[in-house]
């Protein structure tokens, strides 16, 4: 993970890769959303220091990075729980009993939904995750569990607790590392077209 010799929030090889990835786009900041995902996956959050680093890295001001971080729900500016459950509360899932899933999880975890977490677990409701035909659903650290029943949801929590079911932790398995790093535009740096 983070070494003491660098302020970069990512391991050196990762930083070097992002350095090359920047050149694939007409503007460096195009990598911002995936870059912030990567930082968050490594550090558990995007804190002020990382925000400043990311801003310098893509050549924009920190407040613009902050604007992006607060616009999208998937970024955490505060330390987050180790296992994060998000239950869809939208129409298809609600019709299929999402409320009962939330109640079962609150009971199983001893947590109140949408009231933060205990460091180990957090529980929240979210808008549509795109699993409507397999409702109700929940997402744990980026992995979907679908066609839930209250009992099934409880069992998944127990299974994760006991290591019988795996969910992604730390740096995402999704390596945003395309094999090809072509600079895919051929023009001089863009002229502003008012």
């Amino acid at each position, binding site marked *: 993970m983070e070494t003491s010799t660098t302020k970069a929030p990512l391991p050196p090889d990762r930083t070097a890769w992002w350095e090359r990835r920047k050149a*694939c*786009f*007409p*503007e460096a*900041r*195009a990598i*911002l*959303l*995936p870059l*912030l*995902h990567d930082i968050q996956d490594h550090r558990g959050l995007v804190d002020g220091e990382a925000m400043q680093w990311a801003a310098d890295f*893509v050549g924009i001001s920190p407040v*613009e990075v902050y*604007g*992006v971080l607060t*616009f*999208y*729900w*998937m*970024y955490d500016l505060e330390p987050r729980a180790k296992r994060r459950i998000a239950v869809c*509360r*939208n*129409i*298809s899932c*609600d*019709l*299929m009993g999402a409320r009962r899933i939330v109640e079962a999880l609150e009971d199983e975890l001893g947590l109140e939904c949408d009231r933060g977490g205990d460091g180990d677990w957090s529980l929240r409701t979210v*808008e*549509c*995750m*795109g*699993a*409507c*035909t*397999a*409702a109700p659903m929940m*997402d744990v650290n*980026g*992995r*979907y569990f*679908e*066609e839930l029943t209250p009992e099934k949801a409880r069992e998944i929590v127990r299974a994760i607790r006991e290591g019988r079911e*795996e969910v*992604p932790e730390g740096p*995402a*398995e*999704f*390596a*945003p590392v*395309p*094999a*090809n790093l*072509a600079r*895919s*535009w*051929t*023009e001089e740096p*863009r002229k*502003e*077209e008012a």
Partner: protein
Amino acid sequence: MSGATDPAYAWPLRTPHPGHETYLFDRIGIEGMADLETARAHGAYETFERVLEEMEPSEVTAAVKDSGLRGRGGAGFPCGLKWTFMPPLDDPRPRFLAVNADESEPGTCKDRVLIRRHPHLLLEGILCASYAMGITAAHIFIRGEYVEEARVLQRAIDEAYAAGWIGADIRGKGFGVDIHLTRGAGAYICGEETALMEATEGKRGHPRPKPPFPAAVGLWGKPTTVNNVETLCNVPAILAKGVAWYRRIGTQASPGNVLAGISGHVARPGVYEVPLGITMRRLIEDEAFGGGVRNGKGLKAFIPGGSSSGFLPPSELDVPLTHDDLKEKGTMLGTASVIVLDEDASIVRATRIIADFYHDESCGQCSQCREGTGWLARILARIERGAGRPEDLDILLEACANMKGKTICVLSDAAAWPVELALRHFRGEFEEAIDRARTVVGVAAGSGEGSAS
């Protein structure tokens, strides 16, 4: 991560699609179609290779235009016509294809199936479109929640690069294009085409005013076409089997098959490939598709095309699934995502949930939307809670009227439509909820609920 069950895909894979031809889902049941080797064994990139050898770019555009293919992302704009808005091929500027994989309309999970089970079909569609329009680079923007789908798609892109299907001078034919994948981070509005471009550029997903349209000023200020995943997946079949074949499927004004997702209170929820023009009744009731309302219940309402298309009563079940027929009913085909509500469901609650969603997802640029969505959500919440007031329904309709056609993008309109349709077809249920509230002592208006403003 492997070994996760795939319930969303179980139904369509088990369905034999009786009585009609399929070309989007025809190969998704094959194990390993996300791998290039398997996909190639089943014909992936053969159409593109033939197009490179035998067709001029203008012929590709003409075929797509003549096919009558309309966008599958919600608006239903003619795809080929959109392509012709791009500058001529001798224009030296770089130009981009923005691929909308930000599928976020509640009820919609069709692109997810295509990406996960057959990503090379999408890539082939992108390649054909890129050849037709002389695209420099295609930028796919996928919603952040689709972690697994992004992994599958990136792997497919990498494999296709390694095999020379993407990149410079493909198959030595002098045409080259790059394909990049960008993951979003959770915001419904990024599915709006100009917000999608902002997000692809690494910004907040704030829609841009139009004009200028993307074909003139798009990604990084360059000419850009924005196409939905399913739309592009139609392209290889059109080019392989011909315009005449394609136009025999569906209807005159809405040709082709569409991926219809059926969710809610049906016996067999799932994503089904059906010809446009199929009736809602058949889609919901047929044993091959929805299988009817589950548990033998009656039908109260259905949503025809994703949350913003609003509610229709059972008396409208015979409406054909086409752009124009649904428009006539005051709704839209949208993403063809049907949501079914049984007789026990509460329209008040369902409307409130949808209003909450748009309030949550309003980007905040336009006051009509930023404030209006909040008004709708708060008033509907108090009606649901049993604190509704007699004047609330009129306030809702007035708010809706003030939200439509006044903003940079149509999120504001999309928030107003379902409320209006709910009140048009199910007003009695709202009045009942308010009347109930009036009879309960101490829950009269003004008892600490505050005003809607």
